[in-house]
């Protein structure tokens, strides 16, 4: 199994993060911290309010059961059993609330540190002919404000004048400053960030209270949380199961009366609570909140839970070539010597001629010669008696003159002119190689020398856009998950095809215009596929809005961020793959815990039914396969297990089930084995153990 996926199960040892270390203050850890339980306790009590509980129908039923058993116990104060059941039912509700409170608490910690960034700023608003100082909250859309070194930018906006370096660590956690300048795709600034140098004029684009930062805060706090479609569907299913079990328990009493084994309301309530899917009912909202939280920990902000869910369903990924699939700059990939020239000689000449070339391409030629061909690394001062010819955009050549030897490296046309000017010729085979490299989308550089008046071409350097390491594996992984990748590039079709083949993407869109991109998205969507893409420019905005999952880079324009439903604060386009996996993990966690919850019921029946009816029909004692010690302890053990399993599963709900990019079949088999079969067996063991403990208490066993 490939390990290149950055969605790693986070462990207590501290999760390795994708790419960089996150600032400790802002991102709560993905692991479960017991201290959070205590901190969340008051909130858990506050959530006992029935008006809040009703949104989780399963737990609402448990709360009614708790009230009922408490009232019943109060009417018969000497009945220890009634009190104990009542207490554990209350604990069940409380544990459910606790799980939600803990999930929210982690978000709140992040919100608090975000809020610190939103200190009360004073804005320097430009008026006709001057500026005035107003509170940041008094700004309106369209106002122009000045920010100089040291100022906090008072609100979201676009730079309309000047260029400045900005510290965005409050938002991104990234300490390195970024450049923001007017015009182009790096003009957006975020309120709460700090200008480090120079002076810019910002046109405000968001109302105070509705800035990016504000939205982030409300999102991570869960205030803006709405139930997602899938969550609603699952809630419906859980509610209908609850109704079925309610019926099964309510109708049981007349049957029991006939059997001469009338049951107390306490026991019936205990049975009901054990049967209804409390485990998933209790953890459902925590799972959703934690899913959003996992995105935030990876520095991605989603504008809605719906988008996170959609990410799990994505079947087509549109990826920009440059920066996502390739490094984005051309690098030397090989030497093609001319006839009669040894490759080592060509490499030596290329190295010499590139020492004066400070461009990334030039450095890559040096790197290729030293790394691949084992030539000693040389500095310029190690070459005696050298006159360096640096690369310029005019000459399009670099080189060195040392004694009678003159070496040049550069664009094919420039070097050809240089050689022919000195009376040399360019062999046809070399021209053929030049053609071939251009045809594959690469860039050919010629290397030539003039040794004591005899000029000749030594060969060709093949420059090309290099695919990032590990991309092929990642795309293969995505393919196994059923996701098709499409590379978007402005290159011509031949170039695009070569890179697409090398990177292993499924398809490509060459010479892509924003309209082409839009059309591709619509075409995919018409086929029922969900599309995810990243973008940063203003011209990406329509496509970002059209895509089911549009991830804008934080460095992008505010138009792009506005149109997208997620923003990646790290501006790392490969993050899209993580987002998809987080979406899937969210859905899997829901399904797994639902299965677990339902499978649990089997064991509970085997505990409770014999306890209720073995007195009337001794044959039913055969069902007591766990050998529980007494009817009271059996029922109590089931109720206690039912409550404790919620707490036991809170870490899993918050962390999400371990996810691996597998095909659907293997994934289902794995999760079914773990949570279905596991859910069947675990309560038999758990209830038996609790019963053993309970039977030690005098009067129960």
């Amino acid at each position, binding site marked *: 199994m490939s390990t290149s996926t950055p969605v790693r199960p986070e462990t207590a040892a501290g999760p390795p993060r994708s790419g960089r270390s996150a600032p400790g203050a802002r991102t709560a850890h993905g692991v479960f911290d017991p201290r959070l339980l205590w901190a969340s306790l008051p909130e858990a009590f506050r959530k006992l309010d029935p008006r809040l509980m009703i949104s989780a129908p399963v737990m609402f039923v448990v709360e009614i059961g708790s009230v009922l058993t408490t009232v019943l116990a109060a009417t018969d104060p000497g009945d220890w059993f009634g009190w104990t059941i009542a207490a554990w039912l209350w604990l069940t509700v409380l544990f459910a609330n606790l799980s939600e409170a803990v999930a929210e608490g982690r978000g709140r910690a992040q919100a608090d540190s975000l809020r610190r960034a939103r200190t009360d700023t004073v804005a320097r608003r430009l008026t006709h002919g001057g500026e005035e100082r107003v509170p940041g909250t008094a700004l309106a859309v369209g106002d122009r404000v000045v920010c100089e070194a040291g100022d906090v930018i008072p609100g979201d906006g676009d730079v309309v004048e000047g260029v400045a370096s900005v510290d965005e660590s409050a938002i991104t956690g990234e300490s390195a400053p970024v450049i923001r300048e007017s015009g182009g795709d790096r003009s957006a600034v975020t309120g709460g960030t700090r200008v480090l140098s120079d002076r810019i004029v910002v046109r405000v684009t968001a109302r105070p209270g509705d800035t990016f930062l504000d939205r982030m805060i409300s999102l991570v706090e869960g205030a803006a949380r709405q139930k997602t*479609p*899938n969550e*609603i*569907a*699952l809630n*419906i*299913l859980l509610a*209908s199961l609850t109704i*079925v079990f309610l*019926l*099964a*328990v*309510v*109708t*049981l*009493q*007349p*049957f*029991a009366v*006939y*059997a001469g084994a009338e049951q107390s309301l306490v026991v019936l309530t205990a049975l009901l609570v054990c*049967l209804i899917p409390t485990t998933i009912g209790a953890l459902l909202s925590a799972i959703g909140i934690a899913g959003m939280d996992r995105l935030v920990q990876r520095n991605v902000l989603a504008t809605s839970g719906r988008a996170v869910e959609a990410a*799990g*369903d994505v*079947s087509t990924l549109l990826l920009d070539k440059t920066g996502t699939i390739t490094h984005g700059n051309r690098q030397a990939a090989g030497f093609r010597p001319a006839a009669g020239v040894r490759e080592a000689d060509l490499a030596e000449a290329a190295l010499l001629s590139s020492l004066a070339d400070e461009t990334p391409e030039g450095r890559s030629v040096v790197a290729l010669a030293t790394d691949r061909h084992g030539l000693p690394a040389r500095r310029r001062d190690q070459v005696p008696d050298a006159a360096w010819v640096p690369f310029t955009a005019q000459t399009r050549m670099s080189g060195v003159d040392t004694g009678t030897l003159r070496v040049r490296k550069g664009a094919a046309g420039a070097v050809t002119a240089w050689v022919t000017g000195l009376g040399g010729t360019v062999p046809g085979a070399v021209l053929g190689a030049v053609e071939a490299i251009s045809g594959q989308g690469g860039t050919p550089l010629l290397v030539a020398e003039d040794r004591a008046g005899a000029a000749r071409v030594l060969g060709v350097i093949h420059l090309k856009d290099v695919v990032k390491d590990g991309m092929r594996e990642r795309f293969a992984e995505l*393919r*196994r*998950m*059923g*996701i*098709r990748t499409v590379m978007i590039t402005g290159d011509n079709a031949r170039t695009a095809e070569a890179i697409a083949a090398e990177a292993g993407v499924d398809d490509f869109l060459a010479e892509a215009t924003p309209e082409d991109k839009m059309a591709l998205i619509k075409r995919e969507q018409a*086929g*029922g*596929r969900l599309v995810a893409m990243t973008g940063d420019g203003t011209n990406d905005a329509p496509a970002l809005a059209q895509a089911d999952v549009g991830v804008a880079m934080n460095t992008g324009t505010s138009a792009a961020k506005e149109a997208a439903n997620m923003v990646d604060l790290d501006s790392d386009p490969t993050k899209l793959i993580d987002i998809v996996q987080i979406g*899937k*993990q969210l*859905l*899997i966690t829901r*399904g*797994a815990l639902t*299965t677990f919850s*339902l499978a649990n019921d*089997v064991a509970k*029946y085997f505990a409770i*039914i014999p306890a209720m*009816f073995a007195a*009337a*029909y001794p*044959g*039913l004692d*055969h*069902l007591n396969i766990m050998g529980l010690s007494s009817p009271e302890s059996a029922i109590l053990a089931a109720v206690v297990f039912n409550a404790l399993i919620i707490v036991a599963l809170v870490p899993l709900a918050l962390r999400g089930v371990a996810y691996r990019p597998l*095909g*659907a*079949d293997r994934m*289902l*088999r794995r*999760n*079914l084995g773990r949570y*279905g079969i596991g859910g069947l067996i675990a309560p038999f063991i758990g209830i038996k153990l609790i019963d053993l403990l309970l039977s030690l208490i005098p009067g129960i066993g």
Partner: protein
Amino acid sequence: MNHTLADVLQISALIVALALVHRPLGDYMAAVYSSRTHLRAERWVYRAIGADPDAEMRWPSYLRAVLAFSAVGVLFLYAFQRLQDRLPLSLGFDPIPPDQAFNTAVSFVSNTNWQSYAGESAMGHLVQAGGLAVQNFVSAAVGLAVAIALVRGFARFRTGELGNFWSDLVRGTIRILLPIAALAAVVLVALGAVQSFAGPQEVQTLTGAAQQIPGGPVASQEAIKNLGTNGGGFYNANSAHPFENPGGLSNLLEIFLLLAIPFSMPRTFGRLVGNVKQGYAVVAAMGVIWLAGVIAVTVVERQAPGTASQLAGGSMEGKEQRFGEGASSLFAVSTTMTSTGSVNSFHDSYQGLSGGVLIFGMVLGEVAPGGVGSGLYGMLIMAVIVVFISGLMVGRTPEYLGKKLRPREIKLAACAILITPALVLTGTAVAMALPDGEEAMTNAGPHGFSEVLYAYASAANNNGSAFAGLGADTGFFNTTLGFAMLLGRFLPMVFVLALAGSLAQQQPVPVTAGTLRTHRPLFAGMLVAGTVVVAGLTFFPALSLGPLAEGLAV
């Protein structure tokens, strides 16, 4: 030949026959429902009822047609029975009392065929052949039509249209049920079943006493009774009566008839959705549950304790000597799991645990393989629920056959599976809470409770067999069971058709490597587990106080 070998051979022969017929019959039914041409006889019918068979219906119109047709059927049958004495061929029987007439009318229109009357001593030939037998055909055809509408919901995209109810109804009757029933009736006559319109014959018995032996159009009703998973026998003794079911071979044929269409419907489904493997998964799930039930009941009956039982090779109480334990158990499980309800032995006399299996077979929702049509749509609803949970576990919004299962779909599916358990449990609870339940029992203790539970399980799931032992011809039972049958049949249809309409509007979600594959054994296994666990969890308490308490008391 020892018993075990005989049982194995009989079951194997049946499975082979079903496997052989499953493909051609399933393909034929798929062709019937997608055919564009009308037979001449069908055109006459359309002209007579004034229906345009080519007009596509959206789900509300389809549902209205189903309900209107069935309502007319109930009224017609009710009037028929109430006016029996004034109609020809009444054989001199009195009109049926109102509560029983309501119960019977609902019973036959809902494809239940619960009989609170004794056929040969209450219903004249005209009511039997012109009323009840007609409903045997059309009520089954209604079930087929609704199932096909749901399948179209899966097969069609970006449309709300589900086909035409009148054309589905007429085709199901004329092209599927009639020809097979006619053929089967002829074979049954050849095997010794009676077929006449004569009045009762008076014969001298060996002791010299005179006895009236009624005859009638028995073989024809017998064929459709089983083929259409109806179950209403001509005689009170149903398929245990030698005129209905003369011997071992006719018995096997009848079991085959009642399983043939339900087990072939998944093939039709697979054909119509364009992937026969999808049908295989469904039929495999149905088959596994059915076979497990057959094995369980056969083993329990064979192992019945007691000297007499062991000498007889098993429990023979309530069973016909000419069938024995094996063929009786096979019939009993097949009839309860197909919503047929015809019986060749008396389920009341089965061992406690066997009775539990029979009740469980019904409360599964009649899906393994279930009634004609209703079995398929019941199982597909179950599949929707199972896909929803297992689909989440592969990390996508669940989808089945390219359709997304959104809140609306889950709401409708959940409502559809909620209805029958609710009816069974509340019906039984009301009967037990009121004196009526206990008064009607002929047995005390858990067995008496099983009798009442069985009655409501049978009625709400439109099975129609009785546990016997329960004196159910009372105003209370006729009325409450009547409502259980009515609601148990038509309320789920409302949700099934609404679901079909909702599915048909969707655009297809393409299948990728990340899609849950619903034609694999793993999914069939989950379908079995889901069906059994959901019903098991719902009915475990009730079953434990009846069959389990009785069966485990040994």
